[in-house]
């Protein structure tokens, strides 16, 4: 039988049972819609996280104490990166591609103003670097300079929430606050910004790192050092130079492990992509199971349909249809049905994820973008057609096996 007529016959049969056909494919529709949503939202999340991370720029390398990238507590309590290391790294002959180095100190300490207390996170870091990195401006005052850092100036820039809490509506710039009984002069206030890259800017106090070490922590350790290479291509080389320099400064012999770790942005991006992929794959596996359930539903309905249409099958065979003709007819019905389910599922899934993206971007995740998963859609149609083929074979074969006269006698 010509292929065109196989399809037409199948369509005719499906059309004569419209509501049954619709109910049959519901499982597939929902399954594929779920795949599309998971993929779309997964890609959206990935794009957003990457957008935030790569705010650092691909030429930036992060150096942290402790040899494990994943053991965060070890990183926190390791005290292996000191002023001496920074000085060594700053030397041109050690790390020739270094253009900027920003050592960070992070600690928690109370800030006092006229008896009122606030417990913010205190970050010691170059002001300009941080302002650029997180893309934050000031609502009043100005940033401190590299000279302030060299001179261990007792100046502070505070987040908007701290300002409101301690100063209310009056000006904060020019006032003195006390941290660990040392007086610091407020020289700037950050604009409202909320969470950026894991820091709540509104509850942050930014102070020159040298001043934090001298007056607050009393140590010369750093929690994190950001180092910028002269170009993204040189980031790997820079990381290597940093490693060699630090191993030398720390006097590590060749069999000792690093007591620090270095992450390039490329590695971070890869890590995030891996996490998102694992997560998405897991969800898709769950959804795939629902497609199998949908497939079993289709098989069930098709078996009913085959037994209902015993007479038609017998007649077609009596008129000269071969086993193959009958098999093709029922398989086409199954595949058309599930593929249609797939297409409807894609449309529904895409619409829902578009809506979700819209809501997300206007509420919790500014900058969330809608991504239509092209690959996922092709996969969705392919998988649903496959489900039709797989779960249609058994009923179609049952139909093809029928003997014509048994079928014609059937009442």
């Amino acid at each position, binding site marked *: 039988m010509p292929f065109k007529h196989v399809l037409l016959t199948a369509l005719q049969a499906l059309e004569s049972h419209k509501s049954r056909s619709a109910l049959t494919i519901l499982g597939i529709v929902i399954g594929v819609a779920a795949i599309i949503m998971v993929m779309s939202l997964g890609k959206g999340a990935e794009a957003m996280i990457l957008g935030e991370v790569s705010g650092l720029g691909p030429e930036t390398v992060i150096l942290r104490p402790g040899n494990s990238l994943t053991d965060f507590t070890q990183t926190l309590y390791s005290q292996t990166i000191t002023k001496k290391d920074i000085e060594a790294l700053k030397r041109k002959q050690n790390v020739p591609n270094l253009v900027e180095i920003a050592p960070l100190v992070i600690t928690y300490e109370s800030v006092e103003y006229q008896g009122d207390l606030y417990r913010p996170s205190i970050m010691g870091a170059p002001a300009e670097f941080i302002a650029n990195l997180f893309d934050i401006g000031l609502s009043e005052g100005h940033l401190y300079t590299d000279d302030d850092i060299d001179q261990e100036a007792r100046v502070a820039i505070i987040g908007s929430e701290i300002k409101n809490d301690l100063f209310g509506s009056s000006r904060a710039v020019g006032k003195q606050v006390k941290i660990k009984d040392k007086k610091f002069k407020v020289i700037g206030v950050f604009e409202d910004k909320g969470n950026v890259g894991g820091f709540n800017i509104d509850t942050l106090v930014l102070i020159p790192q040298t001043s934090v070490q001298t007056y607050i922590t009393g140590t010369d350790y750093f929690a994190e050092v950001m180092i910028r290479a002269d170009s993204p291509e040189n980031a790997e080389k820079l990381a290597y130079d940093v490693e060699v320099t630090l191993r030398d400064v720390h006097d590590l012999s060749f069999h000792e492990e690093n007591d620090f770790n270095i992450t390039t942005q490329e590695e971070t991006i890869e890590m995030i992509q891996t996490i998102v992929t694992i997560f998405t794959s897991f969800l898709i596996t769950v959804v795939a199971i629902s497609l199998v359930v949908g497939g079993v539903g289709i098989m069930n309905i098709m078996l009913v349909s085959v037994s209902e249409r015993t007479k038609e099958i017998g007649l077609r065979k009596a008129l*000269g249809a071969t086993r193959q003709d009958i098999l093709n007819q029922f398989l086409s019905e199954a595949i058309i049905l599930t593929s249609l389910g797939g297409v409807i599922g894609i449309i529904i899934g895409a619409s829902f994820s578009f809506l979700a993206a819209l809501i997300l971007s206007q509420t919790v995740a500014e900058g969330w973008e809608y991504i239509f998963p092209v690959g996922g859609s092709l996969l969705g149609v392919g998988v649903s057609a496959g489900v039709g083929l797989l779960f249609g074979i058994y009923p179609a074969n049952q139909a093809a096996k029928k003997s014509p006269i048994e079928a014609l006698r059937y009442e």
Partner: protein
Amino acid sequence: MNLFEVSNLEKTFTGGGVETKVLRGIDFSIEEGEFVSIMGPSGSGKSTLLNILGFLLDHSSGEYKFNGRRYEDHTEDEIAQVRNREMGFVFQTFNLLPRLSVFENVQLPLMYSGRPESEWKDRVDEVVEMVGLTHRSDFDTYKLSGGEKQRVAIARALVNGPNVIFADEPTGNLDTKSGQVVMQTLQELHDKFGHTILLITHETFTAEHADRMIYIVDGKVESDKKNLNRRDAKLDFRK
């Protein structure tokens, strides 16, 4: 040449642990171009015999040759092809697909024939005209009267230009007048176009439209004789 050759043909149905012996040794041969009626009481095995002759059912023992070739020497696809190309069936209960139009029903055998699609339409129109239903061609068949339905079934049986037409009580569900139209058509197909026709009926009146009458009782041929006073459906009709 003998189109059908049957010797010592037996058919036993087994089902639910019960064996039903339906055909108990049938012998006859039928030449190309004959018009034969098969008669007998209900349950005597007429339909079973016709279904075996029509490649719709296999026999239990004995031999059946169609066109000189043993039934069991055909592959499944060849069996389908013989049914499609060389045989046409007309059933008592019409067996049309009710949601398809007259045209589509008649077209069905062509779809399985392997003939080029370009020939289909002309062929369908031709046989639909032959049974006088051109004006009903686009009707869904469930809307037709019984007589019209049976004429659609005849057109469908003819569409591939088969040699043989099997008709199992084609007038059984029709009133006398519609039955006469069907019988007239069958006679015409035999007389004008030389089709071989095997007709089952339990009415002597209807059987007498054939040239040869085989009488079956209890799964055996009881008599097999020429009909010397063949009825002419056209004349019956005028009465």
